C-alpha cells in the first residue's frame, strides 16, 4: 500500500513539468563557434552530437532520447547571448551544456542563473566557473582550471630550466589572464624570470607583431596562452623569426590537429598538459576508448573524414558528453533541473573512456572543478608524448 502511494504523491507534488524534458526526449542546448577565429573548436559540439546519437541508438537515458541543439556564435559573446536566450526561451532546453569560450559563458551566466537553467560543464577553464558557485549555483565548469594549468608550467620551469627568461603571449580576457596569473604563482620566487608579456585582443587579425616584440626580449622560454588561429600564428611567427625558445602551449590550443599543421621546427619540443586521450597519438591507437570514439564518430558523425578521426576536439566533446550522460543517469528517472545540479556537484566518475587512465572526475558541493588531474606531454615526431606522473591540480 505504502509503496504504491509514494509515486502518486511524488507525481502530485510536482507542480510544473521540467522544461525540455518529455517522456521521450531531453533537449540540451549549446552555443559554440562554428565559424570565425575559433571555428576549429566547433568539433567539440560535433563530437557531443555524435556521442548523443550513439547513446540514443542504445536506448537513450531512461528511454529518453537526447536532442542536442547547438548554434553558431562565431566566438562572439554578443551572439552567444542571442543564442542562449533563444535556446532557453524558444527551444526550451533543459540545460545549457558545454558552451565554448570564457567571455561567452560569462556573458550568459547571470541570465541562466536567474532563470535557474543549469549551465553545465562549460568549455572554459576560467577559475570563476568553479569558484563562484555561491553567487552562481547553476554554473559548473569542466576542464582543468587555467590558473592551475599556468601554475604547472611555472613549476616545471623552476624545476627544469636553468636561468629561464620567459616571454608570455596571452589573450586579453579572463582566459589569458587566469593562465598568466597561474604561471606567476607557479614560478613563485622566480616570477621575475618573466622578462616580457604581451596581451592580444581576441578580435585581432594577427599576433605576429606581438611575437616579434616578445622575441626582442631575448627570452629562452615562450608561453603561448592563445587560442585557435592565434596559436597557429604564434608558432608560424616563431618559425619565421628563427626564434628557438622552449615553448609551452596551453591545453585548449594543443590539439594534435592544430600542432601538426604548424611549422615543425617551432613545434618540436613544445610542452603542454593533457587529460584526454589523443586520437592522433600513436600510443592510444589500440586503446579501447579511442576505438570506441572512432567507431562512434564514423557511424554517427556528419561528414567525417580521416582527419576528423584524429581530431582531439571531437574526443574532448565525447569526454564531456560521457560525463553529462553519466550525470543524467545518476539524476534518475524523475529528471529535474535541481536534481541534475545536485548530481553534477556530487560526482565521482572513474571510468570515462575518453580521458587518461587513472583520472577520476570528481566534484563536491564546495569543489566544483570536475577535472583536476593532468599529465605533462611533449611534442615530437608529429605527435604528443605524455611524460611523468599524473599531477593533481586542485585549486
Amino acid at each position: 500500500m505504502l509503496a504504491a502511494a509514494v509515486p502518486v504523491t511524488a507525481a502530485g507534488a510536482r507542480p510544473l513539468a521540467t522544461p525540455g524534458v518529455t517522456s521521450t526526449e531531453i533537449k540540451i542546448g549549446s552555443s559554440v563557434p562554428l565559424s570565425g577565429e575559433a571555428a576549429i573548436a566547433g568539433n567539440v559540439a560535433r563530437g557531443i552530437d555524435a556521442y548523443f546519437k550513439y547513446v540514443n541508438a542504445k536506448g537513450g537515458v531512461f528511454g529518453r532520447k537526447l536532442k542536442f541543439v547547438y548554434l553558431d556564435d562565431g566566438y562572439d559573446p554578443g551572439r552567444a547571448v542571442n543564442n542562449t536566450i533563444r535556446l532557453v526561451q524558444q527551444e526550451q532546453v533543459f540545460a545549457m551544456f558545454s558552451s565554448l569560450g570564457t567571455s561567452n559563458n560569462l556573458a550568459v551566466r547571470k541570465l541562466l542563473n536567474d532563470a535557474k537553467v543549469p549551465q553545465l560543464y562549460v568549455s572554459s577553464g576560467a577559475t570563476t566557473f568553479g569558484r563562484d558557485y555561491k553567487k552562481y549555483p547553476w554554473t559548473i565548469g569542466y576542464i582543468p582550471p587555467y590558473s592551475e594549468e599556468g601554475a604547472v608550467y611555472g613549476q616545471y620551469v623552476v624545476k627544469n630550466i636553468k636561468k629561464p627568461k620567459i616571454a608570455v603571449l596571452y589573450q586579453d580576457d579572463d582566459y589569458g589572464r587566469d593562465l598568466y596569473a597561474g604561471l606567476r604563482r607557479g614560478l613563485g620566487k622566480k616570477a621575475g624570470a618573466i622578462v616580457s608579456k604581451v596581451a592580444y585582443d581576441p578580435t585581432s587579425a594577427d599576433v605576429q607583431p606581438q611575437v616579434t616584440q616578445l622575441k626582442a626580449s631575448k627570452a629562452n622560454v615562450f608561453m603561448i596562452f592563445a587560442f585557435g588561429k592565434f596559436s597557429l600564428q604564434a608558432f608560424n611567427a616563431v618559425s619565421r623569426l628563427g626564434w628557438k625558445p622552449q615553448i609551452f602551449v596551453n591545453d585548449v590550443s594543443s590539439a594534435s590537429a592544430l600542432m601538426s599543421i604548424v611549422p615543425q621546427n617551432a613545434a618540436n619540443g613544445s610542452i603542454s598538459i593533457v587529460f584526454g586521450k589523443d586520437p592522433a597519438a600513436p600510443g592510444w591507437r589500440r586503446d579501447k576508448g579511442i576505438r570506441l570514439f572512432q567507431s562512434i564518430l564514423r557511424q554517427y558523425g556528419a561528414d567525417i573524414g580521416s582527419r576528423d578521426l584524429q581530431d582531439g576536439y571531437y574526443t574532448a566533446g565525447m569526454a564531456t558528453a560521457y560525463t553529462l550522460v553519466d550525470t543524467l543517469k545518476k539524476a534518475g528517472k524523475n529528471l529535474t533541473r535541481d536534481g541534475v545540479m545536485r548530481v553534477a556537484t556530487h560526482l565521482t566518475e572513474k571510468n570515462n573512456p575518453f580521458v587518461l587512465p587513472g583520472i577520476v572526475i570528481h566534484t563536491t558541493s564546495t569543489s566544483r572543478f570536475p577535472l583536476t588531474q593532468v599529465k605533462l606531454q611533449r611534442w615530437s615526431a608529429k605527435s604528443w608524448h605524455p611524460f611523468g606522473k599524473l599531477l593533481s591540480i586542485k585549486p
Partner: protein
Amino acid sequence: MRLKLALEVLGLLALAALIAVMPQLVSSFTAYEMATVGMYFIALLGLSILTGYSGQISLGHGAFMAIGGYTTAVLSVNGVYGHHIRDLWTIPIAGVVAGVAGLLVGIPALRLSGLYLALITFGIAVSFRQIPLKFDHFLGGTSGKVLSLLKTPFGLSATPNNWIYYLTWGIAFVLLVAAWLFVRGKPGRTLKAIRDSEIAAASSGISLARYKTLAFAMSAFYAGVAGSLYAIARGFMNPDVFPIVLSVYLVAALALGGVDSFLGLIVGASAIYVLVNRTADVTQWINHLPAVNLNPQRPGMPDVIFGAVLIVVLIILPTGVGGALRRLFGPLTSRLYSKS
C-alpha cells in the same frame, strides 16, 4: 488634403492598436523577437530622416547604436560616482549622447556629400570598435559589460519579454509620430528641397548648415535610443553587439523598405532581424524549394541569401516595399482625394 491627413492619422491609430494587441496573439519569445525588430525600426526611422529626406547617406549608424548601448551599459553598470542609474532612465540619455555625436559628425558632413560622406561615416563605423578596446577597463573590451537582467519595473504584471516589447514599440510609436510631424511640415519640405538640389535650396534662403546637421543629430538620436534598448534587452554590451556590417545592413534595409516610407521600414527592420538572428532558418526555408540543397551550417550562406533578396527586390520594386505599397494604394487614395 484633409482626407489624406485623416487617412494617415487613421493608419497610425491602426498601427497603435496592432502593437497593443500583438503580444496576446504570439508566444512570449516571439514578443521578444518583435521587440528586437522594433529596435531596428527605430534606428531605420532615424536613418530615413537623414537619407530619405535630407539625402545624406550614412554607413556609420551601427556606431551611433553602439554609442547608445555603451551609454546605457556605463550608466547602469558603473554608474555616475557610484550611483547606478536604472536602465529605463538611461534610454533618453543614450539618445542625447548619440545625438551629440551625430551633431559632431554632421558638421564636417556639411562639406561632403554623396559618396564621400558615405565613406567618412563608414570609417567611423570601422574605427569605433577600437574605442571600447582601448578603454577596456572602463568599457569592458571584448569581454564586454554584463548589465542587470531584463526585469519588469514598477510592479507591472507583464512578463519581461512583453515589457521590453511594449517599451520598445511604445517608444517606436512616439518616435514615429515625431518623425511624421517633423517631415510633413516645413522641416520635411526643407530637407526634401536640400535633397533634390542643394544649390536651389540655398538660393531659396534655406540654411543648409542648420538643416543638415539637424538631420544628422536627429537620426543619431534615434539610433542611440535603439542601441540603448538593444543593450537593455540583451543585458550585455561589447563591440560586436553592433558589428560593422550592421551599418551596411541598415542602409540595405532602408532601400528594401523604401527610403522615405516609414511603414515600409518595418519590413526592412524585420529583414535585419532575420539576417542577424535567424540565418540558419532562412537557409532551411529555402531548402524547401525544389532542387535546392544548401548547408545552413556553412558560414556566409545567409549573407548570400540576403544579397540575392536585396537585388531581386530592388529590380522588381525599385522604390522598396514602401514605394510598392504607395503605388498599390496610390490610385485608390488619389481618387478619394480628388472627390473630397
